[in-house]
């Protein structure tokens, strides 16, 4: 039987394929750079300040925690740098320095180290930190308020706010091309759709993230948005808008598939991803929050261990 091939094991010594946490993290950092680059081009040196401060302070908190708990310093694995970078992708370019410092503290200490460090966090650390920050200081993370002093070459209102307030007519201000090319306001590294898609495809090809999570998530967004639009086309925007606006793409490629907080079995991954997509659009369309992706990721992180109960029957087990 062909399936028996998977059980063939050669004798030692074994050869390590080189894959490791550091390599995965640095590949993810590379994948995030195109999207961040456009943010830096649009918002200039203040954006550079946010990114560099987020990465460096995230590394500082991890170093401090390692020292305080007398554990080996693990800065070289790139984990803290990656988390700082992902946090920078989600925030506006004008976020104050103390919010970055607080955000990286929440990410590294509350979101990850308190649970035992890398691989032990039940929630995506950055998403947890962003939710705490955005609930605590809503105006700082309201993109419409944060970016009032930028003279941009496109309409500087947050697309999801427009749709939430004015219904689907508001979505007509933003073409799919605008959303793909980053001609709308939002998180520093969350608006350049093409850059995020390119980075996401790279991560899927390298199997650093699992398509079994990302693709069902996008399908969940599409199907749910289509259902809403079919029910009331005046009130709810179409699926393409929801796929390209807000945190959808950054969530699909950089948040939802995080190793520690997502399921490991295939069927569980599909349910996890699809459920995340459904939740995100439900929160956007009938919840009080403008964007539902972060909350959807947190909710799906919460059910991830339960979903992993759906597992293949053990080989050789009878009955």
């Amino acid at each position: 039987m062909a399936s028996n091939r998977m059980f063939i094991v050669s004798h030692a010594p074994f050869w390590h394929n080189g894959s490791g946490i550091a390599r995965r993290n640095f590949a993810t950092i590379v994948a995030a750079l195109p999207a961040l680059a456009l943010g830096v081009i649009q918002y200039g040196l203040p954006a550079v300040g946010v990114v560099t401060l987020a990465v460096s302070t995230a590394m500082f908190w991890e170093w401090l925690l390692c020292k305080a708990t007398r554990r080996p310093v693990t800065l070289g694995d790139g984990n803290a740098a990656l988390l700082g970078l992902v946090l920078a992708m989600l925030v506006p370019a004008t976020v104050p320095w103390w919010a970055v410092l607080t955000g990286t503290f929440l990410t590294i200490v509350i979101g990850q180290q308190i649970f035992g460090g890398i691989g032990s966090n039940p929630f995506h650390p950055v998403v947890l930190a962003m939710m705490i920050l955005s609930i605590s200081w809503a105006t700082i993370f309201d993109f419409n308020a944060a970016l009032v002093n930028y003279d941009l070459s496109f309409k500087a209102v947050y697309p999801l706010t427009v749709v939430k307030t004015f219904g689907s007519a508001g979505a007509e201000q933003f073409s799919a091309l605008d959303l793909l090319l980053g001609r709308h306001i939002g998180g520093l590294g969350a608006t350049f759709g093409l850059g995020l898609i390119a980075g996401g495809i790279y991560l899927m090809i390298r199997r650093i993230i699992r398509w079994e999570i990302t693709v069902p998530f996008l399908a969940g967004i599409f199907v749910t948005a289509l259902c809403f639009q079919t029910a009331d086309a005046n009130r709810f925007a179409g699926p393409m808008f929801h796929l390209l606006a807000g945190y959808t793409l950054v969530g699909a490629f950089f948040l939802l598939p995080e190793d520690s907080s997502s399921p490991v079995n295939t069927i569980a991954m599909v349910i996890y991803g699809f459920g995340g997509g459904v939740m995100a659009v439900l929160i956007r369309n009938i919840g009080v929050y403008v964007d539902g992706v972060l909350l959807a990721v947190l909710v799906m992180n919460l059910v991830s261990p339960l979903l992993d109960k759906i597992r293949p029957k053990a080989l050789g087990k009878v009955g």
Partner: protein
Amino acid sequence: MTSEKDLKVVTSVAVILFVVGVFCYAAYSAKPPDEPLRIFYPAATGNVLFQHKDHVEAYNADCLDCHHHPGDDSGLMACSQCHPKTVAEGDPPPDACLACHELDDIQDQPAVARADAFHKQCGDCHQGIGAGPPAADCSGCHYL
């Protein structure tokens, strides 16, 4: 576990990034332009994002259409300088009013609160020219 050599490299990178970050925040923070582009008004009934630049450039509004008092360039100041967020009985007039008026002359005339001033000014203007959201259309200006 990171080797000593790698740790030195990574720590150096972190320190450099930190210095760059502090420098960018200290020297290149986004500063408000002389003339506002957009003005954000937080409100319990839904925030308002006023498109100042669009009103001036795209809708050809004259500065004095909104900055109506005293009717010359001296009135080109922030609305909140004459229209405080809240006005209670017995409140002294705003400092901006006292720059021109004597206290005795205006202390019997309470200032118009910002929200009331905006609702009247914006609503009347929109109604007068038949464009923009009317005062009765709350969600035309206020968003969640």
